[in-house]
């Protein structure tokens, strides 16, 4: 029987007591406790419902300027492609089969992925240098040039998760039995 099964069957307090005793007795238990506040700088995870999005905001116009400064060197002028792929959808969804050029506007299922990826990984040679406002602005710019949002729409922690991506309904799990139950 696993610890998890034990815990689901009894009260939270009892589980905590059991856990404390058994962990000390059975395992090496060499992890160091850390508070939520102290681990926060590493918690980059953003969920599709917007959980994890930080304060801040940005517009497509602001993002256009930032893109020219930080991104165009690799992704090309106006995100049309350079030494790496362009970021503007060439055709509307759905795509068809191998060799399709997947892009934000015609493929990505949720909008939060854009913020998440820019913040954690871009610019490629200097990740994590952008402010949250700048990441929102670049996200807004990419959504706009992919014709998903209008030129004046402001992206922030409330508006971004509400953006409906055009291809969102075209995904299904390859291995349904391996997917966790809700």
């Amino acid at each position: 029987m696993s610890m998890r099964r034990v815990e689901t069957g009894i009260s939270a307090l009892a589980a905590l007591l059991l856990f404390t005793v058994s962990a000390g007795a059975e395992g090496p238990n060499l992890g160091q406790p850390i508070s939520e506040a102290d681990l926060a700088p590493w918690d980059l995870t953003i969920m599709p419902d917007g959980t994890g999005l930080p304060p801040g905001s940005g517009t497509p116009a602001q993002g256009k300027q930032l893109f020219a400064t930080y991104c165009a060197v690799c992704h090309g002028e106006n995100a049309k492609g350079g030494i790496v792929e362009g970021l503007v959808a060439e055709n509307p969804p759905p795509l068809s089969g191998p060799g399709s050029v997947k892009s934000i506007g015609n493929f990505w299922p949720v909008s939060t992925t854009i913020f998440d990826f820019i913040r954690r990984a871009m610019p490629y040679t200097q990740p994590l240098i952008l402010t949250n406002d700048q990441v929102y602005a670049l996200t807004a710019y990419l959504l706009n040039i992919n014709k998903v949002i209008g030129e004046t729409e402001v992206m922030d922690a409330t508006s971004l998760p509400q953006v409906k991506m055009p291809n969102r309904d075209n995904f299904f799990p390859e291995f349904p039995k391996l997917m966790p139950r809700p």
Partner: protein
Amino acid sequence: MKPNRDGLAAHAVASNGLLHRRALLGRGLALAGAMGAGVGVSTGAAAEPLTEPDWSLVPGGSMPPYQVPSRFENNVVRLIDNPNNLPQISHARTPHQLLSGVITPNGLHFNVNHGSVPDIDPAKHKLLIHGLVKRPLVFAVDALLRYPMVSRINFLECGGNSASLFSNDPAQATVQQIHGFASCSDWTGVPLSVLLDEAGVDPKARWFIAEGADAPHLTRSLPLGKAFDDAIVALYQNGERLMPGNGYPMRLFLPGWEGNMNTKYLRRIKLTDGPTLSYHEAHTYTDPLPNGQSFQFYFVQEVKSFITSPSPGVGPKAPGYVELTGVAYSGNGRITKVMVSADGGNSWGEAALQGTPLPKAFTRFRMPWQWNGGPAVLQSRAWDEAGNVQPTRAEFIALRGETKSPASWQSFPSHHFNAVASWAVDPKGEVTNVYA
């Protein structure tokens, strides 16, 4: 067994020269004699008189602290595509055509790095476990090294391995170029379940999100069930600490699952109630089918095999006895059978599996072949213990599609290709990639 030509006919198991696998056993030597013109009882010129070579007449060189292969093996290297470290993805492919057995040497294990190879000081690296847990914990590398460990021999395969076979026209490429994103090692580490139990899993948790300490902070979402099945935090690879390109000082290792999910440079695991839909799971390793629908969360690397020799660049040098060999593996368990064809799939013979096949590991197969010097199309097809059979390419592309124009061997038109691959052998012994 008396050598004669009737012996050869008795051992044929499929057309175009495939012989029964028992010809690989010691008694196969008698069979070799039976091949007459094949192996050399009647063809060889006499050997030259023997003399002492130079290296037998003086003491040799000193022993290096960490030995490397003979200088005569300096062609046995990975194929790398970003030697100048441009700001883009870097690939290194395993030279299957020059290897044997089932363990990939550490220096030859494939790498796909989305942010080059970080130089991580293990004294400063940490693993955070948090999210839906009772108490978040931070583990130092030295602390993890004190935990009870498990070792498993498992393959690792990139979701993009063999992707150029989605091309509608077969790209001319070697087994290294086409299938070089699969390797197999003895991985040692701490069961992830042990660490999660110490943090105390909240019953609401359904997924865990792994993240690396490399510059892209690469992140993937995994079902929590895998953590309590066979996932480990791997610290050792073939007995020594992980190679930098393979995730030093620690990586997530998920036996049988898509390579990219096996997060390298592992620094954080967050338990959640859902997936994050990161770039690499929302964009890179998911692909549209011909009907516009896309698979998502393509966890398992399914049953597959390919012939490593003969293959392009290492074709048979002369008619006669040739050993066909390759690897088979499945993310769903053990390999149970490999069939080989020398006539493009019209007839098949069962290959010999080396040793006892291990679950989710390379299994080496071998097949004796008497090449008559004529054209041949070599194929292998694998079965696993879960009852899955490697699809033919025709079956596979009927569902998954192929490109509308030829794609190069460097391209990734789609992912998760596991269909039968074919090598054509021409009368000169040259081998090319074909569809059959």
